[in-house]
């Protein structure tokens, strides 16, 4: 199935016309990032991977989860139902799409086997109205390493629909999920059954020195946890949240209350394990009291905790943490060390 560029434009304009939220790569402040578009022409096509992942449209950086009023005797609580708009993410990348499974794993942890366990409805409700239309990458940049973590520039995981660019500049359409199939059905008029040759997809080089299986195994070793090399690799880490906030799979959040007068909101905000106060206990004790411990945790989370607890991967190889790091801390260097 092919959707011609022009028809894709019609499709997008129609979706917007229906009041749906279309998220696509746009150019803002010199950066390509995912954002809501007002028209098809807002879309930037010249990009490897936007600076943000589209996770913020499923799991916003800040959102109200309850409102309260401090009353005379009690605090009156009122739940918040997020304002839901049907959302189409157009132009996500296979790595980002694959990350939704990772997010879902956390936000529904154990709930499938045991329904009494907690499910994060805020995430699930948003996911339930979101259609992910991925466009396979034609090439990566030097920081892309999806192939090293078991994905490819055309992996369908996590996408509802996978688009691949044809030599004529149109897109081959592959519905992946039921939702994707339904979407394609709904908009069948815009899609033809023609065939076109696909543009060649250039895979990022698989880094030979890295073996994720080996990394997982080595991280189970307590001695590795205490290896002084951690200090060495993370010494330059400045402890900002740039990597975690750019990462499509990082999911940690904090809960804060913000009140004016006697009324307030309870908000759920992204949090970063790289922040010094992330693990600060009320007692004053901080189990991760220096930066290398926090960085080590982040690495462990991706390559040990995730694979141990979930079937999904903690790292999709999008390379954002490498691109965004102000001190060029390259996660691949550590992966390589642990693959030895």
């Amino acid at each position: 199935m092919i959707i011609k560029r022009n028809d894709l434009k019609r499709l997008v304009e129609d979706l917007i016309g229906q009041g749906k939220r279309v998220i696509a790569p746009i150019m803002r402040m010199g950066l390509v990032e995912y954002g809501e578009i007002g028209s098809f022409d807002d879309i930037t096509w010249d990009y490897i991977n936007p600076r943000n992942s589209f996770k913020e449209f499923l799991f916003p950086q800040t959102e109200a989860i309850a409102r309260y009023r401090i009353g005379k005797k009690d605090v009156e609580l009122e739940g918040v139902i997020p304002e839901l708009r049907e959302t189409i993410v157009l132009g996500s990348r296979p790595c980002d799409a694959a990350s939704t499974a990772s997010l879902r794993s956390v936000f529904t942890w154990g709930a499938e086997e045991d329904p009494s366990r907690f499910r994060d409805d805020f995430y699930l409700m948003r996911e339930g109205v979101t259609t992910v239309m991925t466009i396979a990458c034609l090439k990566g940049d030097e920081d892309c390493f999806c192939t090293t973590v078991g994905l490819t520039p055309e992996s369908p995981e996590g996408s509802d629909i996978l688009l691949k660019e044809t030599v004529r500049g149109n897109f081959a359409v592959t519905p992946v999920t039921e939702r994707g199939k339904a979407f394609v059905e709904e908009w069948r008029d815009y899609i033809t059954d023609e065939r076109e040759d696909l543009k060649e997809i250039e895979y990022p080089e698989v880094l030979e020195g890295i073996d994720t299986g080996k990394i997982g195994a080595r991280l189970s070793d307590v001695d590795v946890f205490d290896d002084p090399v951690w200090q060495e690799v993370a010494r330059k880490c400045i402890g900002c949240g740039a990597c975690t906030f750019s990462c499509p799979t990082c999911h940690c959040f904090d809960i804060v209350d913000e009140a004016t007068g006697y009324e307030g909101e309870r908000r759920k905000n992204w949090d970063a394990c790289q922040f010094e106060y992330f693990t600060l206990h009320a007692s004053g004790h901080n189990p991760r009291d220096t930066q290398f411990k926090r960085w080590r945790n982040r690495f462990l989370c991706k390559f040990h905790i995730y694979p141990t607890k979930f079937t999904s991967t903690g790292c999709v190889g999008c390379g954002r943490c490498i691109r965004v790091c102000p001190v060029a801390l390259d996660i691949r260097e550590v992966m390589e060390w642990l693959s030895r």
Partner: protein
Amino acid sequence: MEEKGWEPRIVAFVCNWCTYAGADLAGTSRLEYRPEVRIIKLPCTGRIDPLFIIKAFEKGADGVLVSGCHPGDCHYTSGNYHARRRWIVFRELLKFAGIDLRRVHFSWVSASEALKWRDLINEVIETVRSAGPFEAYRRLNP
């Protein structure tokens, strides 16, 4: 911009020794002035942090007044000089950020300047009113 029946809300951060006493004197002298000001008393203008002003705007103030002892009169010798320096910079920062300076006022009012206090408050309220409700800041709320 201006809503009907809208009156500005102004927070005044004042020092205990001069301006607060000056405002008291305005009271004992039964001077009348506009009521839209809420005073928060501090020991000295040197205690006043720019964060107070930001927070006041966050909490719905349309204008802010900061007032203390005249130079040389500070009960604590130099608190107002320290304050003056901070205000020079902070005011420029607010201006650069695009905040209408009709909303931010600084003054020296001594314990004897009840008349000045009255006129000042009326004038500040009038100026803030001319700037309208601080909707731009309110829109920052989620």
